[in-house]
């Protein structure tokens, strides 16, 4: 499958023509900077775009229109890509050739046009969206693993822009006015760099002509090219907070100077998989299978901050032993204490994930975006090669670039 790129004065367009799917997806990504009030405003504005527009002036009428268009889905999502805030709108619809051909596609495209260029911004909708966002932040507290992760990152990223949620900050919600919303919308349409991706059974040239005409942006065509703040994290003492819990949540952080553009990036990706990527990882085997301390344990590498994090949950009396076992496993990894089979298992798991990433329109759109923004390979063969090339000594070298910095426990009150 070939990625066709069309660079226009005010936007970048990606086309992936394929008959693999019965779904077609068009995704728009608008890039801006991460700042507390701006991010909160942009998120609320995006949700208001999803709520109603000139053509469908109520939530009900918009939902009815989407249903009438064979369950066309309009998804609005705020995301964080390193230091960038991304407002993302995705329109998913049935392959027009099955349900109505060019006329159906035209109607879907008009809906997208109305959504972007003719929103209905009113006080009532803003107040509703503010309340939904407040409810969302409150709901984070109910899910204790999610809440523990949030607290872990809050401590870890204290005073750092990464701390910010892509949905903004609760403290800024009430301060956002309708004027702020309108200004944020104007900035998105007229100034933000935008990347548009079409995946599915749509012919590229014809689609480009229609999309370019209907979605006429005026923004900066230059997509952002820097997403990383290369500030090392200082080691800090362990933190424990408590709530009424049956199970303590354990989070640990290791810092490195390896980011997504580092020559050791792929070594770190394989290391993360080997260390705590799945049920064949070293942590899963030693902490769960051999010591029976927990139900789940995993590790993740964060390529924009250089952090490797570990997350698990267990009885309060087992936390210290689990933490020690994680550290021992890490030190033995640094010493090269893993088998060739362990390394093959980690690489195989990543290979499977890479091959599957071409099996979904959204995955393909994300791959295309990554290849443009980070100069990363799009083709499967190139991506697989980078994993295949990682050897034992690469893992050990990457491991020496990691150092343990922080433990956070959200534990039970009576422990």
């Amino acid at each position, binding site marked *: 499958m070939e990625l066709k790129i069309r660079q226009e004065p005010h936007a970048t367009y990606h086309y992936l023509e*394929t*008959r693999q*799917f*019965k*779904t077609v997806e068009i995704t728009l990504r608008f890039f801006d900077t991460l700042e507390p009030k701006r991010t909160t405003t942009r998120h609320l504005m995006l949700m208001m775009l999803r709520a109603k527009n000139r053509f469908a002036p*109520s939530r*009900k009428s918009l*939902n*009815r229109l*989407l*249903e*009438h*268009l*064979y*369950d*066309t*889905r309009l998804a609005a999502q705020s995301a964080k890509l390193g230091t960038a805030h991304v407002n993302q709108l995705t329109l998913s619809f*049935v392959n027009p050739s*099955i*349900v109505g051909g060019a006329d159906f596609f035209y109607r879907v495209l008009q809906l997208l046009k109305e959504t972007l260029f003719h929103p209905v911004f009113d006080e009532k909708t803003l107040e*509703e969206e503010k*309340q*939904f966002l407040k*409810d969302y932040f*409150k*709901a984070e*507290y*109910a*899910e*204790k*693993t999610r809440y523990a992760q949030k607290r872990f990152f809050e401590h870890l990223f204290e005073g750092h822009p990464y701390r910010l949620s892509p949905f903004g900050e609760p403290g800024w919600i009430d301060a956002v006015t309708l004027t702020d919303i309108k200004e944020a919308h104007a900035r998105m349409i007229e100034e933000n760099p935008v990347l548009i991706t079409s995946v599915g059974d749509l012919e590229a040239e014809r689609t480009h002509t229609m999309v370019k005409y209907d979605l006429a942006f005026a923004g900066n065509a230059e997509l952002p090219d820097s997403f990383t703040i290369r500030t090392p994290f200082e080691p800090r003492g362990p933190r424990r907070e408590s*709530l*009424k*819990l*049956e*199970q303590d949540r354990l989070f640990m952080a290791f810092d490195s100077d390896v980011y997504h553009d580092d020559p050791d990036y792929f070594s770190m990706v394989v290391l993360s998989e080997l260390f705590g990527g*799945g*049920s*064949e990882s070293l942590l899963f*085997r030693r902490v*769960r*299978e051999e010591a*029976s*301390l*927990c*139900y789940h344990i995993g590790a993740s590498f964060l390529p924009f901050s250089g952090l490797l994090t570990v997350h698990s*949950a*267990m*009885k309060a009396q087992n936390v210290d032993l689990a933490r020690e076992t994680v550290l021992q496993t890490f030190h033995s990894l640094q010493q090269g204490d893993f088998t060739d*089979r362990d390394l*093959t*298992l980690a690489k*195989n*798991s990543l290979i*499977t994930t890479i*091959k*599957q990433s071409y*099996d*979904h*329109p959204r995955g393909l759109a994300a791959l295309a975006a990554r290849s443009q923004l980070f100069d990363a390979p799009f083709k499967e063969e190139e991506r697989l090669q980078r994993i295949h090339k990682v050897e034992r000594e690469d893992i050990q070298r990457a491991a020496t670039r990691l150092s343990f910095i922080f433990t956070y426990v959200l534990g039970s009150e009576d422990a």
Partner: protein
Amino acid sequence: MKKTTYKAYDEIVYKFTLRQRLDIYVLRKRRFAKTYVTLSAPLGSVHRRYKDESGAVRTVPPGVAHFLEHKIFERAGRDISADFSMDEAQINAFTDHHRTTYLFHATDKVFANIERLLEMCFYPDFSQDGVEKERNIISEELNMHLDDPHYRQFHGLLNNLYCEHPLREDILGTKESIDKVSVEDLRSMHEAFYQPEHAVVVVVGDVDPYVLEDYLDKRVTLPGRTFKEPLPPTLQEPAGVEREHQEERLDVLTPSLLLGVKLSPRLHGDKKARIREKIILSILLDLQFGRSSETYESMLESGLINDTFGLDIVYEDTYAHILAGSETNEPEALKQKLHDLLEQLPGKDAAFNKDDFERVKRRMVGSFLMGLDNLEALSQQFTSHLSHGVYFHDVLDLAQSISYEEVEAQRRRLDLSARSTYIVHPDK
């Protein structure tokens, strides 16, 4: 090999029976790199009894189906997952009330991985050591659920909605029952319920079914027939509910309400009629409570619900119910509103017209077609519909054949009187 073609949306379903005992379905999806394979055994948390070789009825502790799911992966004291991973497959499993499903997705060596899956499921290797080690892992899994207020509310509601049904028990069992599970319990329940005749394999991906059949025919030996007999759950469920309402204080910041309606589905007879009944009910509830309904918009605008509002219909072999719930700052008012709406639903006048009905049908068509791209969801839907005696692919035609008059007739017949509500309040 039986081949069923769906020309309108370019899908084919193949079926063959391995050694005249194990049904294998292949849903061929050309151009996909991933193949998704499931094996479902008819052992869920509600099944706790079998008949042994002497004809005596034996009962095992709650949670055995789930415990067994964990231990199926053990081979000579180690986890067999790594063997799948060596062949580019990632394996997992889950247990629900009615079945246990083992699944993998692979990007290479699909046939070898299917062979390994069959061997793993039909020839277990339980050990005393392995069972002892697993107790703490499952206890931790249970603790994880106990910290989840949504799970506690859901489980609490099922306990109030049903009086006797084993659905009331946690799928994982209790801390006490997990301690009681023995190697013998696992072996016996496996022998009784994991017979190839009762299991189903579904393969979704770019797989040639003829080559697969040939491969498995040459390489797979199925286990000998067992003399243990699986027994269905004991069911003496009355029409009413155990408890109409309950409130609990938990460590949350926003109150929430969950309402359940126990239905009396046709538990016997024509399975196709049941699936039709379920589709009509889902259309009705969509029209009444869906995101494009007057009701949804008015509840949202009045602040009775927020965007977490959800609706679910469950239709299984031995039970059926509707669940509706939302976070809300006015749980009492929402409870009353939902009760009123459900009282009115079977009433004289419909709150929707033929245009609404046609729109909801178009939504179903779109949802069905786009769902064919998601291999995991497709496999799950296919397996679930097999138990209703139809292919998932037939549901679209079935839905298309439903008329507005039929929906109206079922609306007027609806009995939504067996209801229960569960409110969670913040504890501070």
